């Protein structure tokens, strides 16, 4: 997916861009509202990540102005404030959702998915791999015309594995991506979700292999 990140703090912007790039997303960075306006003229984005306090103005005003000119790209506001009344305020200005800093990227992914799903989804979100097609927005797998719903963690696990087929992911790596750092997770928790995902993949050429002592990988035969 292609993001426009509007954030005046250069270090934060770089970090967010790098992290989203690791998940295979393209990120353009605008440090000011003026830059953001230029970017929006030059390219189309799946989603705008917008900071509120910017050197050349208030993100909410920018958003309202953009919406008035017919700019309809989905917007998630990154705010330092957490109250729902701020949220109502933001949604009134035309934002689709908001997330508080520091951003939990698992939560950001979830919100992005929810926003794009609500908006009917971007066309390129459906991925084909071997004999299955995967739609992360609707959290569905289609195998030989049969649709299977994935639960949240199954979906995220599949996304991680599908991002690099044949690559081995250790249990730890998967745990870090799947569970909140605030949670305590038992060693075999990941096995539960791998087991469930395998059931959902049954009948497909796509398998999750256990690589003894190393972890798991996604392969297609």
């Amino acid at each position: 997916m292609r993001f426009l990140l509007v954030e005046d703090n250069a270090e934060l912007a770089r970090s967010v861009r790098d992290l989203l790039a690791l998940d295979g997303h393209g990120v353009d960075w605008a440090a000011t509202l003026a830059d953001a306006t230029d970017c929006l003229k030059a390219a189309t984005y799946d989603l705008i990540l917008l900071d509120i306090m910017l050197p050349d103005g208030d993100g909410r005003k920018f958003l309202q102005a953009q919406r008035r000119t017919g700019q309809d790209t989905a917007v998630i506001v990154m705010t330092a404030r957490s109250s729902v009344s701020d949220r109502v305020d933001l949604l009134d200005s035309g934002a689709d959702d908001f997330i508080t800093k520091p951003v939990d990227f698992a939560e950001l992914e979830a919100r992005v998915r929810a926003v794009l799903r609500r908006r009917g989804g971007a066309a390129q979100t459906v991925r084909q791999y071997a004999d299955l097609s995967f739609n992360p927005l609707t959290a569905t797998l289609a195998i030989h015309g049969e649709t299977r719903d994935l639960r949240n963690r199954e979906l995220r696990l599949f996304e991680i594995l599908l991002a690099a087929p044949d690559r081995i992911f250790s249990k730890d790596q998967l745990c870090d991506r799947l569970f909140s750092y605030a949670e305590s997770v038992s060693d075999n928790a990941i096995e539960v979700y791998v087991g469930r995902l395998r059931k959902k993949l049954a009948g497909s050429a796509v398998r999750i292999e256990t690589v003894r002592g190393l972890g798991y990988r996604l392969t297609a035969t």
Partner: protein
Amino acid sequence: MTGGRSTQFRGSLRARLVIQLLVIAAVLAVMLYFTVRVTADSAAEATQDAILGAATTSIAEQLRATDTGIEVDLAYATFSMLGAIGQDRLFYRINVGEAVVTGYDDLPMPDVLPTSLAAAFYTRPYLDTQLRIAAVRRTMVVENHPVPVLVLIGQTRAGQQAIADQLANRAALLGLGFFALAVPLSLLSASSVFKPINRLAEAVGRRGPRDLRPVRHPAPLELAPLVTALNGFVARLRGALSQTETFIAEAAHHIRTPLSILRTQAEIALRQSDNEQTRARLRTMIRAVEESARSASQLLDHAMVLYRSDQLEPVAVDLAQITRSVAHAFAPAADLKELLLVVEGDGAPRMTRGDPMLIEAALRNMVDNAIKYSEPEGTVRLVLTDAAGMVGVDVCDQGRGLSGANPVALTARFSRGGNVADVVGSGLGLTIVTEVVAALGGSFRLTEQPEGGTCASLHLPRH
């Protein structure tokens, strides 16, 4: 404002003003009485003197020197003129030289003999009463010798006294009437003096707690310094409060931005590192960042709650709507743990009065707790209630419960349960909830469910 200085100014200005006005009225009434009394006395005396003088002179005019001596004609007309004054007794005495020729020989003589033709007047005690006496002196020629003849007429003063008393009584009545009239008038005048003060007080009192505009109410000149001082104070208060609000917003921004960088960088490093030791350290770091972010937002929430409780301006709030909105905001966070967030009983509005930001902060902390302490794939129920004059919401999880911890102790600042060491938390969440509840006149209760899990119940007065 306690202590000696302020106690001097206690009591009512109005009462002081009324009392002062009444004292002045009383003094004026008494002065009126005495003035009238003295004037009446002297007027009565002057009248008596005039008649006495005329009578005495008239007798003296009728003195005739004859060969045998001096002849006096005491005409009845003369005495009847004197009788006009009232039931007063008359005494007379005529001296020729040193000898009393007729009348009462003990009638007191004047201290100094009159020298002119005019009568001299004086008052002397005589027998059992006071006499007003007129004395006229004439010189007659008897046997070719000039002989002084003195005519004295004395009259008791009962009649004059009666007239003076009558006048004085009227004066007393007049004084009393004046005073009686002064009572309502001074009350009226005190009210009219204090009306502008009362109006100003009403205008200031009618304002809402968040109305910090300067006072523009018209005030009399004497109140201008008070209004100016009040406006100065309001301006300072407004400054301090807006600084507080700005400070909370700025603090949030300045704390969260560096934490965001730290967290994101740590997450990138974690993704890229294969070294298990480094990964463990990075996980610890991210956990610590999450903990400080949470503490920061709860400290700021706490400051916001205290600040807004002080400034409370209640409005009608639909608890059901806030609950839906909070549930909606937390849905992705719950989904990450595959938790189902269910709102029940929100079919009808659940109206209360309060500050929506406070209620929402309380509810947010309750839901955050429920999600935090729930096992994955469970359900968190947000149940709206309406009973016994209170609307409420129960946030029930299927988590680990309280493990016998005292629910009241858990609401103390920075207090956490004994079974939660593995979960990030600041111990401020429930403090925020109880402070909100205290500010809005509601109640909060934590109960352990028999089938496991905890219910946090918030109740607010129905409106």
